[in-house]
């Protein structure tokens, strides 16, 4: 698009960065806290009077087995919270992280005692820079520029617009937790 049209104007984004404009506005958040674990507990099991928290450290064997279910980068340390009303168990919440292309997401999935998903909420969402994930064809676009200067326009734009970021990593994380839950509660065999 080298010939601008009537009514269209062209601006240098880099020059814009050094103009005084941005100082007028706070930058959009690249990390956001949506819910605390306590809020997620209460929202999923409002009738609970007690929550029991344990940290699960997965063994390499367990992690390997879960990789067969769905592959995603997880930290391998998962918080398990059992919800109780008196001596009746209402269900279980798992708090876990997944690391995607540019996003690092902490989420809570709440399961009823029959293993069905009762709630799924993101607790915290952070973005990493993600230039390591640029595809080679993308990088080729910038041949001749400094190789260590990564570009990604509009890919994100938080408050903003950007080519859509897939939530596939989160979906994979949830599938792994469901498999882990079935394993731990002995209901995984069919």
């Amino acid at each position, binding site marked *: *698009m080298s010939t601008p049209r009537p009514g269209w104007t062209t*601006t*240098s*984004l880099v020059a814009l960065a050094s103009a005084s404009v941005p100082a007028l506005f706070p930058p959009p958040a690249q990390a956001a806290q949506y819910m605390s674990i306590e809020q997620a507990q209460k929202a999923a099991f409002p009738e609970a009077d007690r929550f029991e928290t344990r940290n699960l450290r997965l063994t390499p064997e367990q992690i390997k087995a879960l990789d067969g279910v769905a592959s995603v980068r997880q930290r391998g340390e998962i918080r398990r919270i059992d919800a109780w009303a008196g001596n009746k168990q209402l269900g279980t919440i798992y708090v876990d992280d997944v690391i995607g292309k540019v996003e690092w997401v902490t989420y809570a999935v709440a399961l009823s005692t029959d293993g069905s998903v009762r709630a799924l*909420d993101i607790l915290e969402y952070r973005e990493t820079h993600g230039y390591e994930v640029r595809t080679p064809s993308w990088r080729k676009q910038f041949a001749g520029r400094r190789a260590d200067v990564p*570009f990604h326009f*509009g890919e994100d734009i938080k408050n903003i617009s950007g080519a*859509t970021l897939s939530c596939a990593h989160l979906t994979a994380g949830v599938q792994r937790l469901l498999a882990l839950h079935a394993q731990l509660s002995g209901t995984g065999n069919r």
Partner: protein
Amino acid sequence: MTGTTLRRMRPWLGTYVSIEACAADAAHAALAIEAAFVEIATIHAAMSFHSASSELAQLHREAPLRPIRVGWHTWAVLAQAQHLARLSDGVFDPTVAPQLVRHAALPRPEGPAPDETGNWRDIELLNDQQVRFRRPLWIDLGGIAKGYAVDRAVAALQRSGIRYGSVNAGGDLRVFGDAPEDLPLAVRNPVDPATQIVLGTLRNRAVATSGEFFLGREGDTGGLSPIVDPARGIRPAHARSVTVIAETCTVADGLTKIVSLLGPKAQTLLDHFGATAAIIEPPDQLHAADGFWAALGHTQPPGELLHA
């Protein structure tokens, strides 16, 4: 007037959807957000290309054989897609899915193989919300359904009495109401991606962006653009992104595909919808249509103009 603002994020529509709502108290805001997510979940279930139980999947299987009655969300999105297809003379065309399936950007649906000479004109919207295909088709409503879901979620929040808030489905977003502060809109700094360049602020408008690098779908398109040109097929990705600002997110979402393919020649359609757009191209140029900067709260284009 004070209030409590609540933010929630859940995975829907293949991406992360965040909803922000301000109400008199947190319980009110939480209920309203819940209602908005129900709306999004319903739209997701009806129009998922990936799910065999969606209305879309049923259309792929049966609409070439007989008229199929669809729910009103699917009906509304199909009607809007056809409207955009007609206005753009087929530049926007929801029947391009076979090309995306061939490049593994979408899974192969059940049912008859599509007739690849088919196009949007082969979708018949009959009375009583019935849809018939004149020949086997695979349609992808991904170019517009996300924006539609954002609009319906905003409507749900407004029905619930939310004063102001926003809905952001992975970058297709809409802000509404009388917020004390306008929503800043930014892009990454091309020279230092860790920082962002705020372009301006938004109030009571919708924005959508089509970038061609981050594929919002599963599968490896091997550097191909997720935007299919109905005339020429799938093509190598360009390192550019298109941002459209409009009254509704459905229109903004649909127009990004048209501006991606037509560039500034899409001006007539932008005018038709009272929308405006910008095209960002490497190394660092932002080409703005008339009204783009004004929509972001500027009285004149900020920074240094390369061409006016």
